């Protein structure tokens, strides 16, 4: 088989898999082979907007599809938001109330607009598959955002350490809730190392004789190895296995403690 035949076969295969399906006035579904991990294809609609010309849009479906498996507030902030904003910027896609839109400004380059639009959808749909390392880096963002929503600003301090006993800041508490007889030391735990550090930190505070309560909030408690978790459980007053799914419980607990 010659390379020319291969290129022709590629072209024929790709062009056959891209079809326009008319649906309404000046509106076409663009059928493509690109899809989410559940077999549902991307929604790509070619539509003519009065006074503006042709656009490609997903009509908001991409984020709606992501919402099946994740809370969209998770993509509205922190590193996930930065990834999406970077993707939109790189491919020249605009976003209006959750709809992804590409204006086709030139007939000659319609293929390029289409290509960029698909690239954008592919990258955004991948948000739900972020690697463990990437997701781990967003846990602290999520944790801080959650604390900010749950507790009045004057009642907490991130990255606290006790100046009297620990001038070098070796035993840092992720969040300290103050103005209480027994302030709450909150540890945000994303992995075994953080869990071990939290255990040591709690023991050190006990050794110093400082009144406090220890609260552990895990990214996913199931991911912590048993022995590490067991040692932490022995010293921690209260734990939540994750933020997601426990938002109301954690807020209720914190608000009950701070009064």
């Amino acid at each position, binding site marked *: 088989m010659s390379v020319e035949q291969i290129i022709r076969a590629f072209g024929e295969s790709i062009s056959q898999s891209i079809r326009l399906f008319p649906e309404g006035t000046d509106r076409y579904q663009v059928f493509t082979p690109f899809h989410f991990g559940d077999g*549902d294809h991307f929604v790509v609609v070619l539509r003519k907007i009065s006074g503006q010309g042709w656009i490609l849009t997903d009509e908001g479906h991409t984020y709606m599809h992501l*919402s099946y498996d994740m809370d969209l507030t998770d993509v509205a902030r922190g590193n996930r938001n930065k990834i999406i904003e970077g993707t939109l910027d790189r491919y020249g896609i605009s976003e209006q109330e959750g709809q992804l839109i590409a204006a086709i400004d030139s007939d000659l380059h319609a293929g390029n607009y289409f290509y960029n639009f698909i690239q954008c959808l592919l990258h955004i749909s991948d948000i739900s598959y972020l690697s463990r390392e990437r997701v781990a880096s967003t846990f602290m963002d999520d944790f801080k955002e959650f604390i900010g929503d749950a507790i009045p600003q004057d009642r907490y301090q991130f990255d606290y350490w006790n100046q009297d006993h620990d001038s070098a800041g070796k035993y840092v508490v992720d969040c300290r809730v103050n103005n209480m007889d027994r302030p709450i030391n909150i540890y945000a735990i994303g992995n075994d190392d953080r869990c071990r550090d939290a255990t040591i930190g709690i023991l050190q505070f006990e050794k110093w004789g400082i009144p406090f309560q220890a609260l552990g909030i895990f990214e996913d408690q199931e991911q912590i190895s048993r022995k590490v978790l067991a040692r932490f459980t022995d010293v921690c007053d209260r734990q939540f296995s994750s933020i997601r799914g426990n938002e109301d419980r954690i807020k209720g607990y914190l608000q009950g403690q701070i009064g």
Partner: protein
Amino acid sequence: MRNFFLNDIEIQAMIQETKPMPIPFRTFLSGMKPKRGRGGSFLQISSKFGRLSGDGEWLIYACKSKENAFDFSCGLWFIPEGQARGFCLVRYNGKSHQHTNHLEGQQPFYDFHIHQATERYQRSGWKNDHYAEPTERYADFHNAFKCFGRDCALQEPSGNTNLELFE
């Protein structure tokens, strides 16, 4: 989700298991609303509640596009004890996109369709609920929800399971 697996018999049993919702059907659906920002183009609502056996929770989620009346979904997730993420058992989708069942090597179809979790897709590395079949049982969101509610044995707090009454 870590190492949670259901065989086809278990999946079917869980789908058919009676599910006592904490609120009436009408209240659930009337609570659908958009979220700000990226959720602004569709209405959504979810309800999480305990299983009768006490082992894990159910999550029901419904959404529908503000742009396209045929773009909607309502589905059932099972959340095992102690886990943060759910296992999608079924999802009733509208007709806004094609679907391909990749393990079956089929051509894409464009129709209202129902996803269901299967053993084979769990083993394959695709999403649990990848497999879907086209359906003629509904052609709009409300009828999709009725089919979903009947198939998944949703029950109002009053004990009512008749979804014809909620409209």
